[in-house]
């Protein structure tokens, strides 16, 4: 983005109110952006001051510019003007938490060395005052030799003054004061510069020396510098000899300088008064009470995405049906109508249906993060998650995935470490989500509920509950195991740093929460929605075509005709029934009964026609062709076809089974429909052996296990693509889950058959 307007970069530690300040500066005028190759987001906005426009970039929060990953390198690259397509900023605004001045200034002193004018925005003076900390702002500005502007971002105080200071700083000279490193260190920097040749900024040379195993090392190694490793090793050894070993030297120099600079302008009470945070934390991080509160909060979060979202999702479903009917009414039966109604409208509906859950979960995550609780939750859960090689922050994404993996995967953004985030994202779809429930309910209801129909043993009334619980446990047990394996193979690397600040508690800002929820929703619809829609249309086409009946007519039109016929008969029957109510007549009663029988026969005919159509569709043919592969799971081609058709969205399984087993396509969540379909399934027999029942307990279990483990959800894959910025991870997730599902179903069927002697 080339622009003639000055560019301002906003940099600061996490939890300093940086986002609030960015919002206060740029108002609603902002957009989220990504740089190639990184997974962190940067926000861009604009503000105006005295007729001039300024671009603002909100860089990811950081404690230091010592980058250890491409994600952390973004801030350094942007400020040094090394990020492609991005103008070098004219001014850097360092936002600093006044209540924790020394540690916040560490990053600020690094910014002093980047050759860009710096303005310090001193935030949270009120919090500092409450802790008895006083800061002499004028003197601090003098000591640091940069403008220091006190602001209260959450009350929009000091924003005008900050804008004025920023406008003044454009074109000014970069900070003149900065912590000075020992001569031995500076000599090493100079000789490293000579060795590398080219125009390497001195800041990067320092990083190269200090950050053992850091991102700069990786960067220069790939840039064909031979023997860099050996050289760095010897240079670092020389530094250690000279008494300024890395990385300690940087912290000693910077904190020493900061202590001196703040000595006469920062006053702290000798006895720290107990703060609100101390009192709240005494409960919230308590071994017993803390855990209870945590569980209660998690229950509310889980319940909300599971239950509160339901009415909204149902409303979206109803809206979709209404729209489908409205669109369909104006069109002749045929491919176009079917494409619009069954492909496009259904596809759009299946994108929008996730929105309530995403909005609710993200509102919760934003509240928990903004008020400071997220760090406590991670603290409480860390030990448990560490066993799977993850960290405490993976807990909420995984728990949320039990309602729906789509918002769960998006919630994994709170995990800073890239490898931990990816491992969490890849295992999240293993958690049993709410879309699997109708499949479990149907099969458990039909084959595992009543003991008299059981073929294994006569278990008690508790069997349905146990089976359902087991299906949920499957994901709960396998997800950590897969994560554990991944962290030792594909996502292997040095142990991520867990060292985490426990920020002060504060009241969450409604604006930040609303903004985050809406942003997440929009990103999902915009970036993942198109992919989901496309896959829904592909599957629609595979199930629709070829649509030519052996008679040469179109299946769709034939069905519409039969349906219209049937509806006419029903109308007549209803009229007759009403007439009979007023004036009973035995002749007419018989006539009505005959009509009802005819209607039933017509229903059967319609269902048969539907089944025949789906069976000869392209997907049906693939299903038949795949039958040898699903036989070992105890399935025939029809079950295979239903499973295949459920790959874009597993919730269509029940409806597809309905189509194939001649119950018609009904509402999967409706109990009556499930009951009838269950009966159809109980009666179903093998095509080649009409006396042998198709379904039994091992077959039902094998289908359920397959559904528990398989990634039959285009939305999940689209979101994984979106969050990892790569096709590799969704492809990997799809392959490993399908393999796991197949093997799991195979094992369950084979062992189950042996055991029950079927």
């Amino acid at each position: 983005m080339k622009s003639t307007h000055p560019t301002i970069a906003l940099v600061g530690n996490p939890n300093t109110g940086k986002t609030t300040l960015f919002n206060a500066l740029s108002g609603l005028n902002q957009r989220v952006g990504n740089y190639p190759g990184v997974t962190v987001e940067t926000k861009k906005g604009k503000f105006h001051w005295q007729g001039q426009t300024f671009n603002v970039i909100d860089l990811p929060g950081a404690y230091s510019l010592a980058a250890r990953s491409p994600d952390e390198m973004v801030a350094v690259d942007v400020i040094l003007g090394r990020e492609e397509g991005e103008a070098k900023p004219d001014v850097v605004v360092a936002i600093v938490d006044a209540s924790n001045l020394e540690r916040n200034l560490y990053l600020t002193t690094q910014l002093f060395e980047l050759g860009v004018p710096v303005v310090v925005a001193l935030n949270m003076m009120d919090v500092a005052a409450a802790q008895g900390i006083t800061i002499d702002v004028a003197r601090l500005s003098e000591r640091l030799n940069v403008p220091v502007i006190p602001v209260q971002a959450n009350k929009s105080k000091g924003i005008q003054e900050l804008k004025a200071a920023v406008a003044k700083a454009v074109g000014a000279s970069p900070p003149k004061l900065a912590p000075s490193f020992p001569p031995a260190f500076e000599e090493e920097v100079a000789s490293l510069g000579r060795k590398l040749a080219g125009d390497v900024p001195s800041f990067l040379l320092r990083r190269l020396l200090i950050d053992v195993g850091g991102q700069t090392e990786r960067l220069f190694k790939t840039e064909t510098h031979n023997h860099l490793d050996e050289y760095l090793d010897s240079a670092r050894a020389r530094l250690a000899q000279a008494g300024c070993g890395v990385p300690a030297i940087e912290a000693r120099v910077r904190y020493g300088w900061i202590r001196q600079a703040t000595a006469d302008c920062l006053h702290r009470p000798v006895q720290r008064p107990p703060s609100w945070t101390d009192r709240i934390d005494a409960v919230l991080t308590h071994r017993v009470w803390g855990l209870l509160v945590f569980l209660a909060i998690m229950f509310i979060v889980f319940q909300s995405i599971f239950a509160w979202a339901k009415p909204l999702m149902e409303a979206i479903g109803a809206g979709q049906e209404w729209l489908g009917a409205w669109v369909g009414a104006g069109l002749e039966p045929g491919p176009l109508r079917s494409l619009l109604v069954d492909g496009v409208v259904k596809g759009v509906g299946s994108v929008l249906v996730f929105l309530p859950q995403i909005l609710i979960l993200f509102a919760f995550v934003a509240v928990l993060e903004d008020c400071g609780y997220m760090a406590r939750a991670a603290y409480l859960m860390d030990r448990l998650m560490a066993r799977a090689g993850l960290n405490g922050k993976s807990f909420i994404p995984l728990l949320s995935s039990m309602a729906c993996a789509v918002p769960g995967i998006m919630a994994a953004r709170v995990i800073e470490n890239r490898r931990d985030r990816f491992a969490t994202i890849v295992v999240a779809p293993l958690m049993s989500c709410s879309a699997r429930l109708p499949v479990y309910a149907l099969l458990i209801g039909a084959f595992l509920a009543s003991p008299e129909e059981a073929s294994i043993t006569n278990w008690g009334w508790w069997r349905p509950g146990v089976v359902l619980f087991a299906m949920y446990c499957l994901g709960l047990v396998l997800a950590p195991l897969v994560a554990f394996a991944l962290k030792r193979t594909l996502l292997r690397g040095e142990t991520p740093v867990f060292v985490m600040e426990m920020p002060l508690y504060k009241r969450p800002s409604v604006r930040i929460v609303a903004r985050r929820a809406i942003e997440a929703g929009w990103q999902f619809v915009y970036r993942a929605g198109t992919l989901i829609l496309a896959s829904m249309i592909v599957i629609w086409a595979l199930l629709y075509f070829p649509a030519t009946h052996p008679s040469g007519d179109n299946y769709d039109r034939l069905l519409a005709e039969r349906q219209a016929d049937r509806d006419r008969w029903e109308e007549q029957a209803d009229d007759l029934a009403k007439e009979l109510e007023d004036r009973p007549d035995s002749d007419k009663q018989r006539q009505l009964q005959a009509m009802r029988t005819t209607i039933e026969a017509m229903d059967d005919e319609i269902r048969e026609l539907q089944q025949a159509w789906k069976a000869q569709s392209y997907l049906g043919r693939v299903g038949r062709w795949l039958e040898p592969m699903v036989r070992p799971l105890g399935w025939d081609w029809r079950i295979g076809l239903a499973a295949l058709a459920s790959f874009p969205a597993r919730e269509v399984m029940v409806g597809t089974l309905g189509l194939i087993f001649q119950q018609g396509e009904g509402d999967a969540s409706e109990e009556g429909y499930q009951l009838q379909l269950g009966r159809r399934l109980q009666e179903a027999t093998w095509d080649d052996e009409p006396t042998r029942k198709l379904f039994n307990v091992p077959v039902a279990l094998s289908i359920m296990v397959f559904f528990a483990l398989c990634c039959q959800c285009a939305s999940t894959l689209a979101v994984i693509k979106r969050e990892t910025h790569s096709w590799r991870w969704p492809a990997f997730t799809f392959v490993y889950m399908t393999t796991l599902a197949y093997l799991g179903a195979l094992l369950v069927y084979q062992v189950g058959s042996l055991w029950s002697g079927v």
Partner: protein
Amino acid sequence: MQTLDCLGVGQRGRVEAMAGTDAITQRLYEMGILEGEELEVIGLAPLGDPMEVRLRDYRLSLRRSEAARITVRPM
């Protein structure tokens, strides 16, 4: 001489030395854990790990394995 992970809740210590040159040690330095700095253990998570520590003007949570790199003199 002890390491930080051996301190009990409520105990204080002064940092004597830190081991290692990798990212974890660097992060500890950056967060202000320097030789001579005062630390106080203010709590342990339910399973005994990680631990919560107060230093300078803020609170930090770190795993025991990370705390084991920090040699402290109990106060």
